[in-house]
């Protein structure tokens, strides 16, 4: 808008006085013009043109910079695995980050127009823009932390998950040395069969005393009962002494209160029970000749949440943090555009019987199209050079999977001492940005003409 106005101001006097001025151009005015342009040209030349030119030259030189390497650096660009991952991720970024940000911005802008506290809401959504990328990166590093006690993303996820599936009391319990138990389908089963009138010992280890379920008591040796299978399931580990007496109940060892025990015959459960507070249990005569199984449900590991920053999810996770920052920017621009949309058109549509969705879809969005295009394209340019977030958020083990071109450029140039390849990446990035910039310039020109 302002540039259009400026052009107008500059253009109007130029047209009528054009022919007259051309006559007077005898040198003095041209030198004056050059003189005035010089500072800008020098600055642009030194800070923009020269570095681009030098990068271009450097990209054809070898690693040490003293010999010509031809297109080797560019060939590396498309054969190096790291760069290929970076390229792939860049495409994901360019496709998703600007569109999601713009879409969210549009929704926020349209909705905030209708609520009383719209400005306050806008302020809150816009606030992340005031934070530096670095700080935002550190914040999201914490948000995505694996430990549910630290990372809010996993805290929510685990909270939701655990309200549907609870973890068990003995996640790490396992048979100790020379145990009669074998592992079976995530649980454990006795090697031999059990018989009525005899007792069975089910020793396990790996549960710390203060992790025992509440109400667990010192384990007791089971008494044989005629017509019943009896036994004890307990933690066969004496604190400070190791196992104590192997496979036998020692005084300070605790029973596995609430451990589920099943008697299995030919793959069918014939009887089941739960261990008492002292770890003892009793099974009816039906269990005679069966094997005893401690089913997997006893040992279910506590749910540890999602690997947000693991190799699979790291790029979407980082894009999420980007959207958090830039949706506010999109919202503000779109809201400004929305303010310029003539109310009468919306009113007319409503009078004609369109519902709100139709008004939004058929009137608001088409009218906003130029603004949406500007926002998306601006964000695209922004996203192509994304670096900070990807540098900070992923841990070292998955930085490779989150790699983007700008980060790869940095790594090649500064930590691997490959300035040739780094320059080639820089030139390649420039080539990628040029079409988007051309589109933006053209659109601006069209706007000016209108």
């Amino acid at each position: 808008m302002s540039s259009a106005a400026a052009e107008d101001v500059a253009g109007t006097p130029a047209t009528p006085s054009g022919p007259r001025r051309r006559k007077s151009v005898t040198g003095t005015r041209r030198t004056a013009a050059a003189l005035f342009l010089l500072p800008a040209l020098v600055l642009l030349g030194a800070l923009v043109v020269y570095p681009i030119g030098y990068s271009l030259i450097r990209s054809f030189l070898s690693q040490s910079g003293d010999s010509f390497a031809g297109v080797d650096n560019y060939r590396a660009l498309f054969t190096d695995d790291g760069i290929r991952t970076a390229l792939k991720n860049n495409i994901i970024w360019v496709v998703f980050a600007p569109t999601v940000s713009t879409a969210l911005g549009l929704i926020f802008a349209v909705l905030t127009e209708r609520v009383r506290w719209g400005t306050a809401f806008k302020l809150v959504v816009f606030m992340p823009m005031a934070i530096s990328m670095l700080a935002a990166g550190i914040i999201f590093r914490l948000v995505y932390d694996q430990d549910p006690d630290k990372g809010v993303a996993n805290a929510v996820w685990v909270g939701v998950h655990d309200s549907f599936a609870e973890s068990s009391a003995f996640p790490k319990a396992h048979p100790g040395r020379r145990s009669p138990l074998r592992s079976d389908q995530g649980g454990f089963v006795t090697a031999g069969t059990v018989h009525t009138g005899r007792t069975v010992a089910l020793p396990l280890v790996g549960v710390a005393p203060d992790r025992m379920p509440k109400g667990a008591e010192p384990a007791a040796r089971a008494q044989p009962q005629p017509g019943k299978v009896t036994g004890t399931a307990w933690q066969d580990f004496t604190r400070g002494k190791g196992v104590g007496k192997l496979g036998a109940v020692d005084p300070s060892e605790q029973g596995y209160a609430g451990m589920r025990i099943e008697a299995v015959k030919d793959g069918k459960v014939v009887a089941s029970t739960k261990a008492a507070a002292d770890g003892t249990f009793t099974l009816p005569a039906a269990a005679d000749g069966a094997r005893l199984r401690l089913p997997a449900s006893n040992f279910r590991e506590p749910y540890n949440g999602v690997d947000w920053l693991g190799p699979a999810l790291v790029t979407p996770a980082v894009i999420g943090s980007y959207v958090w920052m830039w949706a506010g920017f999109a919202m503000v621009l779109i809201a400004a555009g929305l303010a310029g949309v003539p109310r009468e058109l919306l009113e007319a549509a409503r009078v004609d019987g369109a519902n709100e969705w139709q008004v939004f879809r058929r009137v608001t969005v088409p009218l906003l199209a130029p603004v949406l295009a500007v926002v998306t394209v601006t964000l695209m340019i922004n996203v192509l050079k994304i670096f900070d977030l990807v540098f900070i958020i992923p841990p070292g083990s998955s930085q490779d999977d989150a790699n983007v071109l700008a980060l790869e450029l940095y790594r090649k140039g500064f930590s691997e001492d490959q300035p040739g390849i780094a320059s080639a990446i820089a030139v390649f990035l420039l080539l990628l940005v040029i079409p988007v910039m051309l589109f933006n310039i053209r659109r601006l020109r069209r706007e000016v003409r209108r």
Partner: protein
Amino acid sequence: MHSTLRMRKSPKQPTHSTRRAALTAAAAFLAGALALTGCGGGNDKSSDDKPSADGKESGSTVTLPELKGQSLEVAAVWTGGEQKNFKQVLAEFGKRTGAKVTFVPAQDPIINFLGSKIAGGQPPDVALLPQPGAIKQAVDKKWAKPLGPEAQAELSKNYSQGWQDLGKVGGKQYAAYYKAANKSLIWYNAKVFENAGAQEPKRWEELMTAAQAVYDSGVTPFSVGGADGWTLTDWFENVYLSQAGPDKYDQLAQHTIKWTDPSVKEALTTLAQIWGRKDFVAGGANGALQTEFPASVTQAFTGGDQPKAGMVFEGDFAQVNIAETKAKIGTDAKVFPFPAVGGQAPVVSGGDAAVVLKDSEAAQALVTFLASPDAATIQAKLGGYLSPNKSVALSAYPNDVQRKMAEALVSAGDNFRFDMSDQAPQAFGGTPGKGEWKDLQDFLKNPKDVAGTQAKLEKDAAAAYGSGS
């Protein structure tokens, strides 16, 4: 009126009291500083007339020239307490010679930092370089100047041949190792070991027994900071050095044998005994890969009887992180040397070496001083520091843990080896998400794939060694 008066008075009160608090704090600080410099001052006197009260440190062992009015700059990457302690050593040098020494804080990688300083025509006089590769680079670029005869004499008197050789490039002495790191230590939570009835192991098999006992007691045995690749390379180096021996270690470091060598296979298989058991590593492989080194240390020493892990492997510098927890080093947090996998227990070390960048009498004198036991003793007393200097009395270290680590380091004689990944080209041994770091992270995730890991290591090594040299 009344109220305004009071109003005017009340804001004054706090400033007064805070000023007084500041004053007392300053006084306390001064007193502390005096106490700290006390020994230094005594030492200073001892060099010219009578012996100081401090018996151990009496009499300087090194003669330094008079350097009144000269000024020196020393660059190193140290920060925080390390920097503060090192400045005390520099102050002592200033006292003995009259030279003015300024510490220049540098950024990592220091070689790039020096490059920009040299390009700007203002190199520091002396720099402390953390890798042998950096020393070689500095010599190749003609930045480093050879050490003078005084410094060499000091080196041959106080250092084992191995440490002297590390500072040589092309047979010429360019660097004097001032600070060493012992990277062959396993820290453990004493309470966990006591509960499990486990003993400090001397051999790998005993380590596995202890780990099993810890696991049976209900605590995960190991904490691995897998998000940082260098902790994993250190694991590998210790196992490899002990199992394959120092000669093979050197060959692998030079890449004259391939990573597909059977000895590498054996070492990886041994490592998989720990890495391959999901329940032996805190959080499993995926959890470990998201745990950075500082967290991997602190999680072994927080949580009372139930920490996330019982043991954590890393160098002496882990005590900085332990100090952030409530655990007390020496009682709650204990340490044992990395157990022997093969014939001899490994000693993998790191270290910072002093290099002269601007040849002058003062710069040479400073390196001579740093190579003397006098300098090392001052910093040893302040803690958090190990010296490769064998003339430093073990009694100079402030506690048993430090003494144990220093003893292991010095008693290894010439059988210690410098961190292999620090000797490798940076693209292979020093870049997050690349080369050896990444390959071992993948191995931690999939410890069954020994052959595939070897192939990847060899491919990356070939590329890095080929282009790097």
